[in-house]
């Protein structure tokens, strides 16, 4: 398999943030984000402090800013929604650039944007500095049920295989002149997805049998 290092969003490095144990990073991320979400949106200074802390961690991790910035496009659909809020929100109206918008809506949109942005950047930092295996070990130490951690481990391990299979199916569909996005070709897309499901399911059975023959008894060796 071509997986291994550099999986998903991981950015290879050896900084303090990279070396920190997975469970510490997960707890820190959740605590930090709960704090951000609970911060009243009028407290500008608090967001300044939070952003400074986060940027400090990013700087410490030595992940290039461009690497993170490029991946922040995940946020775009949500940002569009946040920008719509002032127009549909209730409350007193005010003039902004010649448009009538809701004052409370403007405040709310600001809150949504700043909290959402901090959330995306913080999650990206975790993803960029933590190997999937380390994340799984961290979750185990945090008493996440063993079965969930195992399912997650299998999913991450085989994700590139399944996605690769889907990619080849899409390529062959396109090379035969079908465009899977177009509803007219959905029956074809669905047959491919059905085949992908059967292959994934059977691969799961094979993996399970292979593991049984190597002495798997429901838990993974640590």
């Amino acid at each position, binding site marked *: 398999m071509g997986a291994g290092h550099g999986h*998903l969003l991981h950015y290879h490095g050896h900084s303090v943030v990279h070396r920190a144990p997975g469970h510490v990073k*997960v707890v820190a991320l*959740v605590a930090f*984000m*709960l704090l*951000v*979400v609970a911060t009243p*949106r009028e407290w500008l200074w608090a967001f300044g402090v939070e952003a400074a802390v986060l940027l400090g961690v990013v700087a410490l991790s030595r992940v290039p800013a461009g690497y993170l910035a490029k*991946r922040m496009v*995940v946020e775009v*659909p949500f940002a569009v929604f946040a920008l719509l809020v002032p127009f*549909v929100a*209730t409350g007193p109206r005010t003039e902004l650039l010649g448009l009538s918008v*809701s004052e*409370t*809506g403007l405040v709310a949109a600001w*809150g*949504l944007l*700043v*909290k*959402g942005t901090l*959330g995306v950047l*913080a*999650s990206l930092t975790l*993803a960029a500095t*933590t190997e*999937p295996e380390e*994340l799984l070990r961290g979750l185990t130490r945090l008493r996440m*049920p063993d*079965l*969930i951690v*195992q*399912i*997650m*481990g*299998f*999913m*991450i391990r*085989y*994700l590139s295989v*399944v996605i690769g*299979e*889907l990619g080849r199916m899409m390529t062959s569909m396109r090379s035969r002149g079908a465009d*899977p*996005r177009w509803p007219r070709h*959905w*029956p074809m897309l*669905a047959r491919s*997805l*059905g085949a*992908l*499901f*059967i292959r994934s*399911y059977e691969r*799961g*059975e094979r*993996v*399970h049998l292979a*593991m049984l023959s190597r002495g798997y008894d*429901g838990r993974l060796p640590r």
Partner: protein
Amino acid sequence: MHVPDGFLDAPTSVATGVVAAGGVAIALRGARRELDDRTAPMAGLVAAFVFAAQMINFPVGAGTSGHLMGGALAAVLVGPWTAVLCLSVVLLVQGLLMADGGITALGTNITLIGLVTVVVGWFVFVALRRVLPKRPALVAPAAAVAAFLSVPVAAAVFTLLFVIGGTAPVEGATVLKAMVGWHVVIGIGEAVITGLVVGSVVAVRPDLVYGARPLVAGRTLEIRDAEARS
């Protein structure tokens, strides 16, 4: 459709987190009955499949695109308990390793996409299966209807959460109208894809489709002679 950080206030996020944890805990016990000791590798591969299926975007009009949520699809294919586990793990990986959906909104996302769509989809599917004639060919349409209904219901539950703990001063009725209206359109796409995928699997490997098993088990081997065939 993933809820980001800061959209719902902290108490609501924590409360939905507790609901999600409870739902996943119940599903963990139920899934052992569906897959016995094969649970981990099977569910992991099915989760990878759901993730891959979610990567296919389809246009829903106005220049935007939606993607499959897969709750009803997974419930019909592998059974409701395993489906809850698979979707929860998909959301967990998306939240922790891909920054898709806020980390504090993880409970909300698991509750909406993992629990609501699977539970609604499964119950609608089982109710239809009971009413419709007992034929494997009708599994796919039943799954399509289940998928269609599961999406607007999830949108309505989201609106309820928004009214309780939303951070933007938008009227609940406005949000409900927009969310449900929009998700009816997405639901149509979800229904068509779900129905076609389930239909294609039922056609070749009906034994793999969890929702079709009672119907397939009831069939007896039929031996036809050569003349009767043509």
